[in-house]
Structures are given as C-alpha cells and as structure tokens.
C-alpha cells in the first residue's frame, strides 16, 4: 500500500489512531487510487459484497424462526411465510438472493477471464476468489436442503452419495456425513450448522480478497500496469463509490423484480412438497447455478471419474494464472483469445442447459462434447495461445484510449509490446 503518511486532524483522532490505526485504514479505503477507465463489469465486486451482507442479515432473521428438525423444518418455513411479520419478504429475498449472488459472481468471474485479472501479480486474489466461490456453492447447496422439501432431500441424497465413489472408504465417509444410514435429521442439523458458519468464513475471505486487491491495485480494461496515484487514477471515494452505487441500484431493480413478482421461478416446484424418503421425484435437478457442473458430472459414464471431472472443472480455475501463458492481460488486445473466450461462455451456458435436461440421447452427447471442450480450453488452447497469438499493440497509459474517446486503440504513443517474435 503506497499511502502517504496520514495524520488525523483532531487530537482525539490522533490519540486513537496511534493506538489502533482505524482512521488510517478508512483513509486508505477512501483515497484508494482506482483506474479511471473501469467499466461497469467492475461494479460487480461491490454488488457481491451487497449480496453477501443481504444473505447474512436475512439469514439471521430466518434462523430466528426456522426449526432445524426433519419433522418441523418444512412447517417452520411455512410458518415464516404465513405468520411471521414480513417473513415471506425475508425468505424470498434470501432464496432469490442466492440466485442473484451467483448471477453476480459468474459475471465477476467472467469479467476476470476476459480482462486477464487473474494474471500476475493478482494470482492470490484470484485463488482466494475461487475458494470463496467453492464455499458459496457449499453454502447454497446446504441452504437448499434446509426447507426439507423433496428437492432438498433428494438433492442432498444425490450429492452426498457422490462421496461413495471414493474407493474403499467411500461408503464409510457417506455414513459419517449423513450421521446415519440415510439423509435424515442428523444430516439436516449439521447442514444447518454449516450453512450458518460458511457465510462468516466467506466474509473473512472477502476481507482477504480485498486486502490482496489493494496491494497491486485494480486491473483495468486496458490491462496495463498503471502508476498510482497518477493521472490514470481517481480516488475510490467519491468516483467509484457513486458508480458502484449506481450499478448496485440497477442490480437491485432486477433483484426486486424477482422477489416481488416471480419469487418462485428460480426454484423447483417439487421443493414445496415435504420431503418423503419413499418417493423419488421424476427428475432430480440442482439449482440453476450448479447445472454446468452437474452436466460435467453426468457426462462421464464412470461415477468416480465423473466426480473427479466435476471437481477438476472447478479446481482447474485455480491453476488458471499458470495455464494462461500470454503476457498480455486484456482480451481487448488478444484477437484470438477473444474468440475463444466467447466460445467458452457459450460452452458453459450449453453445459448449464443440458444439465437441466435428462442425461440421455442427444443431450448426453452434447454434454460430453461441451465437457471435453471445457477442459480443452483450459488445458490446451490457453497455454498454446500464449505462444502463438499475435497480440495487438497496447497503449502506454490508459489516459490515451480514455481521452481519445475510443475504448480500444487510440493511435498516438503506442509501444510495440506484443509478444510476436
């Protein structure tokens, strides 16, 4: 952190700050030099913080009324919906909030992929982000189990059963996870405990994520290193604060539309049927945000290999800073990578679609091709592209393209920094 020495003006402030430099921290956060050319894709970090806080606050209220017991969980959720003052509002915000959280996190991740934000010196920010994403998936999955509807119960059964694929100890591990010989009350109570715990772990990691970000500073759409503070940066407050606020409000309008007008569209109807261990639903599908991984899991005929493929699909992201060999960060200056980027986006959306479909016939074939391509992208295309691609010349400073009014290449002072030959 390149802050100049900060001294509070008041004597009390100085006294306190000498003992606990909170004011220095606040000063750092408001003055934090941010690239002035950040576009709206960069506002999702703030939006995600909002999502996390919203989930924690609504979750706390829900936990006051929810009963984590197999016989009473479903009833207590209906009690919240009917008799708790504004319980329906709190629950719908929490349930749709999970979807909004994932919508925002996917945009955030794909922004990072497009602008190469995971590359040196930001690998640690990226890896912390992947851990947060993993924890989010765990929290969301366990949260979906809590209402104890049919999808809760059978989703939990399917997912926990994946551990039985582990050779030798698999069955034992599943029994240990369940706390019995099937998904039942002990499973529900431990899922509730963990569902309550994980958001606070995420919160801690978010602090680290932001801390790690504030060391090198933000990447930017041009993807070049900038001097901080300089003509290329603006102080975080008020410039970025108001811009993030504006984007957050637009996000909240979408959020509110889901909560107030189609609160159940992102859930599955079967989850309004109380869990019944004797009746299996026709199709067991996870929530939409887990569908691409579900498709990868099902596209492999062998159970163990399927689980390995699914987990690899997530963990491969952590290795991304080293798989991508290109020195150029932003896809704006990488014409080939840009094409492959959009193919990857399409590939993931296709995986999500087939994940919702029954695993048979054409759907299964598409899932297999899309799974293969997913790994091909990260393991072959990205490493090779770094050596083969002819990148465009990148500007010296972000002020050039910004002042030129054109988002990409202003001529003038350009330095041939492309890697070819």
């Amino acid at each position, binding site marked *: 952190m390149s802050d100049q020495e900060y001294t509070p003006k008041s004597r009390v402030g100085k006294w306190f700050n000498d003992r606990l430099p909170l004011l220095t921290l606040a000063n750092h956060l408001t003055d934090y030099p941010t690239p002035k050319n950040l576009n709206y894709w960069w506002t999702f970090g703030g939006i995600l913080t909002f999502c996390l806080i919203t989930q924690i606050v609504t979750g706390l209220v829900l936990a006051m009324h929810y009963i984590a017991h197999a016989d009473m969980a479903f009833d207590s959720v209906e009690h919240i919906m009917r008799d708790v003052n504004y319980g329906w*509002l709190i629950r719908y915000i929490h349930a749709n909030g999970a979807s909004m959280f994932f919508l925002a996190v996917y945009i955030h991740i794909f922004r990072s992929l497009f602008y190469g934000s995971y590359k040196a010196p930001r690998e640690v920010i990226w890896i912390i982000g992947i851990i947060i994403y993993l924890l989010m998936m765990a929290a969301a999955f366990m949260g979906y189990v809590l209402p104890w509807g049919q999808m809760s119960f059978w989703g939990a059964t399917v997912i926990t059963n994946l551990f039985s694929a582990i050779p030798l100890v698999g069955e034992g591990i599943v029994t240990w996870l369940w706390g019995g010989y099937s998904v039942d009350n002990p499973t529900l109570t431990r899922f509730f405990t963990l569902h309550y715990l994980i958001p606070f772990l995420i919160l801690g990691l978010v602090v680290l994520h932001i801390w790690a970000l504030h060391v090198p500073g933000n990447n930017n759409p041009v993807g070049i290193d900038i001097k901080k503070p300089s003509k290329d940066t603006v102080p975080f407050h008020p410039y970025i604060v*108001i811009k993030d606020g504006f984007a957050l409000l637009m996000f909240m309008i*979408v959020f*509110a539309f889901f909560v*107030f007008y189609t609160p*159940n569209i*992102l859930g599955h109807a079967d989850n309004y*049927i109380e869990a019944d261990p004797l009746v299996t639903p026709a*199709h067991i599908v996870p929530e939409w945000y887990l569908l691409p991984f579900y498709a990868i899991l099902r596209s492999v005929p062998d159970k163990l290999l399927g689980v390995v493929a699914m987990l690899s699909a997530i963990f491969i992201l952590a290795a991304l800073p080293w798989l991508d060999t290109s020195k150029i960060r932003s896809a704006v200056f990488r014409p080939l990578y840009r094409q492959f980027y959009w193919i990857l986006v399409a590939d993931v959306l296709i995986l999500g679609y087939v994940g919702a479909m029954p695993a048979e016939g054409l759907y299964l074939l598409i899932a297999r091709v899309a799974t293969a391509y997913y790994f091909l992208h990260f393991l072959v295309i990205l490493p090779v592209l770094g050596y083969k691609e002819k990148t465009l010349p990148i500007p010296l400073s972000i002020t050039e393209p910004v002042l030129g009014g054109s988002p990409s290449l202003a001529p003038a002072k350009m330095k041939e920094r492309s890697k070819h030959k």
Partner: protein
Amino acid sequence: MKNFFRILIILTIVIGSQTNTNAAEKVEYLKTDWSFKGLFGKFDRGALQRGYQVYTEVCSSCHSMKYLSYRNLAEKGGPEFTEAQAKAIAASFEVIDGPNADGEMFTRPGKLSDKFVMPYENVKAAQAANGGAYPPDMSVLVKARGGGVDYIYSLLQGYEDPPAGIVLDEGVYYNKYMYGNKIKMANQLSNGLVEYADGTNSTVEQMSKDVTTFLMWAAEPHLESRHQMGFKAILYLIILTILVYFSMKRIWSRIETEV
C-alpha cells in the same frame, strides 16, 4: 454501457428459460385470465369466497389444508369474510381439544385460532380411504406443481374417456393433464354441484376457476401485499437510480473521463 445491458438481458433470459424447461412435460394447459397475475394483480374476493365454498363442500372431504387457520379467512388480502362470518365458519367445525383437567380429550366448536380441521387422522387413514393414494395437502399445492394454477385449473376439467387401447385399473381415472394421464382422484366437479351463496352459475369451469383462485391464495396469502410493496419498492429504486445517475454524471464531470 450498451453492451453491458445487452449481455445482462441475455443472461436473464437464459436463466429464465432454463428454469422454465425444468417443468418437465409440456402440455398445453387451459388458459383463463387470473386476476392475481401482473404488477397490480389482486385476488377476486368473490372468487375466493366461492372457492372456499367449493373447497369445503367438495375437496375438504379428502384434502387437508394444514397450514391454514380459520382466522386467515377474515384477514386482509384473503377471502375477507367478516369476522362474524369467519367465527361462524369456525364454529361449524368440531375440533378435538384437550386433555382437560380429567385427562380426557373432548370436542368443542372451532375457534378463529384453530387450524383447518383435517379430514383424516393421519396419512395412513387417508391412504386406506382412498385406495392407497394420499390426497395431497392443499395448502401449498399450486406452488408444488410445475404448471401452477393453470395446471390445477386444467386438471379439474381434464377428465375424459381413455383413448382406445389404454386400460385403467379399478379406481384409476384418465385425465389428459395429469402426469402419465392416470389419476386416482375421480372427477369431482359437475355442473350445478354446489349452490353458490352469491347466485353465480356453478358450471364446472366456474368452480374450477374459483377453487384454483382459492388455492392460490392459500399458497400465497400475502400475494396482494407483495405486489403492492413490489410496485412501491421498484418505483422507489427507479427514481433513486435516476437521481444517483445524475449525481454520478456531475461528480465524474470534474474529470474528463466519460462514465
């Protein structure tokens, strides 16, 4: 900025369409105009009261509604019976209470605070009386079925003779909207089955619509306040967004960058 919107819209559509396709089998459901759909959707009070009548006189002999209480009938946003009416309705049911000071269970007339009386003592009794099929609890039924209100509305009118070649077991009926077309509930509605207190002609279509409206309210008792609050909340957000947009423009005009 434009790109940003375009992609956001595409994403929303993709997610929306994905969940739509979750709803398994596609059959064209019968359509009717529901008063509770849309930004300002409200329940039709008359339909709710008639629907309650259909539920009590027809459905309730097999289907429970365990999450509803008689007090709900007088609450705002529901059928809005007067409190006296709701009390009278409650009192017309026998409720088992106790144990009393002697340790005996006893029956008494229902009160507003009582839950809807269940038709059977337990699931097993319900199954025994219905050829092994458990008539599902109706409290959240419309939310628990893929097609929602349209599905229930269609199902009630979907009974026909089975097409040639389909053999039905004893106690199984053919319904064109049911999953797999086989249903253990016989056709319950026939023209003129109930005599509506408000004089409405009780056709099968009318009763289906009324009782489905009632079930929608039962599943979403706060739907009206949700719609009202939603409109206010979104309007407030839009106005605030516009104000913040202009403040942002103002602040960013201090430096030359476009925002």
